[in-house]
């Protein structure tokens, strides 16, 4: 019966050896142990132990500082080790907020792959460094962000007027101080958007300039025009220490995404609600047609390039964006996290956006147009034609703008076209106020550069014969506008909102003169392919259109 003794002997030796191996790897060969053993503070070696930052109310437990030991509370590591370097100064100290709050990743983990979240089954891998500011969006909602054009203008004004001479902004400027004194003359403006700023700063500056005898203010400050002041105010309202995030949001407000997508409490609902889209789990996305890395940022970027190949059946057209634009929009998408926070962590901007419906874009006509309308009607208002979608009409067409009264355009924006992509922008949840819509109308007029031709006639004057109109409609119009006027290649005409706000003159003139630059030709004009219509016949068609309304 020696077999059993051998069995016991060899099994036990095996168990012992495995335990020795396990003990060694458990106690001596952890990655963070090696890093901490190598990192030194100015007083010599540091304690080798697990370190962590816990913030119970944000529900973070971040052990990242076991490797990134220079960022641990109370550590002053001086070392060539990059991994152990201290954090650069930022508005929210990592000691207070933890690491994953901004960088994502798996804070509970203590090994590189797991901690960085580059493993299956961790829904939040670390954000690439260039997108790190997207995490501001977890808590903050930048409000009243203009479009890129205006943001650039504001930035340039700040630069041109040399505010940097006295003020510091995002770590730049504020260096000049005459007389060799230390410290800054003007306050740091990096967070004026969050902390607020004196709305009467201009008057204050002027008063100081007048009172000054040393010559300092006299030379440093000059009068500023009203337009520049407005831009500066706007610029100051946007400063939250995250300029790239503001630029990203400005881009979102420049290409008309809100026409189809909801963020927070505003936007069109044709597309996907994007309010929390930044929280998508990268492990649940399909990467079949996504070239490049299998990461969420890359997935979004590829999606912007070619939506339908990334998401099968997507209705979203390819917008033809440049690489820089895609980069900014990707950043913005990543910032849409809006996680629920304990009340004490809720910043003012988020409360305003969440509870009081504050606008996330400025409400001048231009920004509203670029943020909401330009996706479909084009940046220049010339309409858009995307493969597979009905054509979106030009709204800066000369013939249209001349005929359409401001009231007509106003009502169209406010009431929309039921059943068509044009949403009732004035009567939906958190929709536009009349004032906002009027500013858009003004902007559209400015974009087209054409005023309405005043119309002396009453709204309804067309006579004619409805039956004749019906026949003529079937022969001439139904091809593009649909047999029942339901729309096709051309817009829907049986739409009750259109018929309610369009005057007879509008309809009559459009039919008789057509719209230059579109397939809609004037029907009174002679044509080799069809008979031109008489005034009476056109009136009949208008009458027929009106009778559609009755149906």
């Amino acid at each position: 019966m020696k077999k059993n003794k051998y069995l016991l002997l060899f099994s036990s030796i095996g168990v012992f050896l495995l335990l020795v191996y396990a003990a060694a790897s458990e106690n001596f060969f952890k990655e963070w142990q090696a890093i901490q053993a190598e990192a030194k503070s100015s007083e010599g070696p540091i304690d080798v132990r697990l370190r962590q930052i816990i913030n119970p109310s944000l529900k973070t437990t971040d052990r990242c500082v076991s490797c990134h030991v220079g960022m641990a509370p109370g550590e002053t590591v001086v070392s060539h080790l990059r991994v152990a370097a201290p954090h650069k100064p930022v508005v929210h100290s990592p000691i207070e907020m933890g690491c994953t709050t901004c960088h994502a990743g798996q804070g509970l983990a203590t090994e590189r792959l797991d901690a960085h979240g580059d493993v299956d089954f961790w829904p939040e891998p670390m954000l690439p460094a260039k997108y790190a500011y997207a995490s501001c969006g977890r808590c903050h909602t930048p409000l009243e962000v203009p479009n890129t054009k205006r943001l650039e203008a504001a930035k340039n004004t700040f630069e041109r007027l040399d505010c940097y001479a006295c003020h510091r902004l995002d770590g730049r400027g504020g260096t000049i101080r005459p007389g060799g004194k230390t410290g800054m003359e003007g306050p740091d403006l990096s967070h004026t958007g969050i902390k607020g700023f004196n709305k009467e700063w201009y008057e204050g500056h002027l008063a100081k300039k007048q009172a000054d005898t040393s010559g300092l203010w006299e030379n440093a400050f000059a009068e500023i025009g009203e337009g520049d002041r407005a831009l500066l105010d706007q610029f100051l309202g946007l400063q939250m220490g995250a300029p790239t995030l503001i630029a990203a949001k400005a881009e979102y407000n420049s290409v008309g995404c809100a026409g189809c997508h909801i963020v927070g409490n505003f936007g069109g609902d044709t597309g996907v609600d994007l309010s929390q889209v930044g929280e998508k789990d990268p492990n649940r996305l399909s990467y079949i047609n996504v070239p490049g890395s299998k990461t969420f940022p890359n997935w979004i970027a590829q999606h912007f390039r070619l939506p339908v190949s990334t998401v099968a059946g997507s209705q979203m057209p390819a917008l033809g964006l440049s690489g820089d634009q895609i980069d900014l929009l990707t950043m913005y998408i990543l910032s849409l996290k809006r996680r629920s926070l304990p009340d004490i962590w809720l910043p003012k901007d988020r409360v305003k956006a969440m509870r009081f419906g504050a606008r996330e874009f400025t409400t001048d006509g231009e920004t509203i147009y670029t943020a909401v309308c330009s996706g479909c009607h084009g940046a220049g208002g010339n309409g858009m034609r995307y493969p597979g979608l009905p054509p979106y009409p030009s709204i800066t067409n000369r013939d249209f703008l001349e005929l359409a009264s401001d009231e007509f355009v106003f009502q169209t924006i406010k009431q929309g076209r039921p059943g068509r992509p044009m949403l009732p922008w004035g009567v939906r949840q958190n929709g536009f106020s009349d004032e906002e819509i009027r500013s858009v109308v003004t902007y559209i007029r400015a974009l087209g550069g054409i005023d309405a031709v005043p119309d002396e006639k009453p709204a309804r004057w067309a006579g004619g014969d409805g039956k004749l109109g019906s026949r003529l409609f079937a022969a001439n119009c139904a091809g593009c506008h649909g047999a029942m006027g339901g729309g096709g290649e051309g817009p829907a005409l049986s739409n009750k909102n259109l018929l309610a706000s369009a005057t007879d003159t509008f309809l009559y003139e459009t039919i008789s003169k057509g719209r230059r630059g579109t397939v809609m030709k004037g029907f009174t004009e002679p044509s080799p392919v069809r008979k031109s219509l008489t005034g009476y016949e056109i009136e009949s068609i208008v009458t027929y259109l009106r009778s559609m309304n009755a149906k």
Partner: protein
Amino acid sequence: MTTKPGEKRSRFDPDPMPRRDFLGLSALGAAAAALLFSMFGMLRLPKAAVLTSPSKKFNVSLPDTLPEGEAFVPEGRSVAVFKDTAGVFAISTTCTHLGCVVKPTTQGFECPCHGSRFAKDGVVTKGPAPKALPWLKITESGGTYQVDEEDQVAPGTKI
């Protein structure tokens, strides 16, 4: 003891248990009854009288542009709400097979767990699901709809 006096018995051949030991039987019976009753009492405990799960009735506001036949799934609920020309209706998205959450598709519903498929009206078309997805009661008041996940209605009921 029912041993007759004078009768000698071996200690290897003990008394048979008396058949009519009334006292002993009733004592044992009482003990058994008491223990049995206590066991029933203990079995009563694990079945909760009220459940901790939140109310199964909830309000839905449908988006303005919900295309006909497209499902609207309220956040955190296993219900799909539809709108068509005949009205609004709600279908449960809990698979009748083993309770997975089915996914609304263009053809109907798909269950990821064991591959059951359902038609647009919830009828089983494929897989192991034993019965159709139930239609749920939905009522309207002032533009919002109220769905009751516990109240099933006959398929085809629309409002």
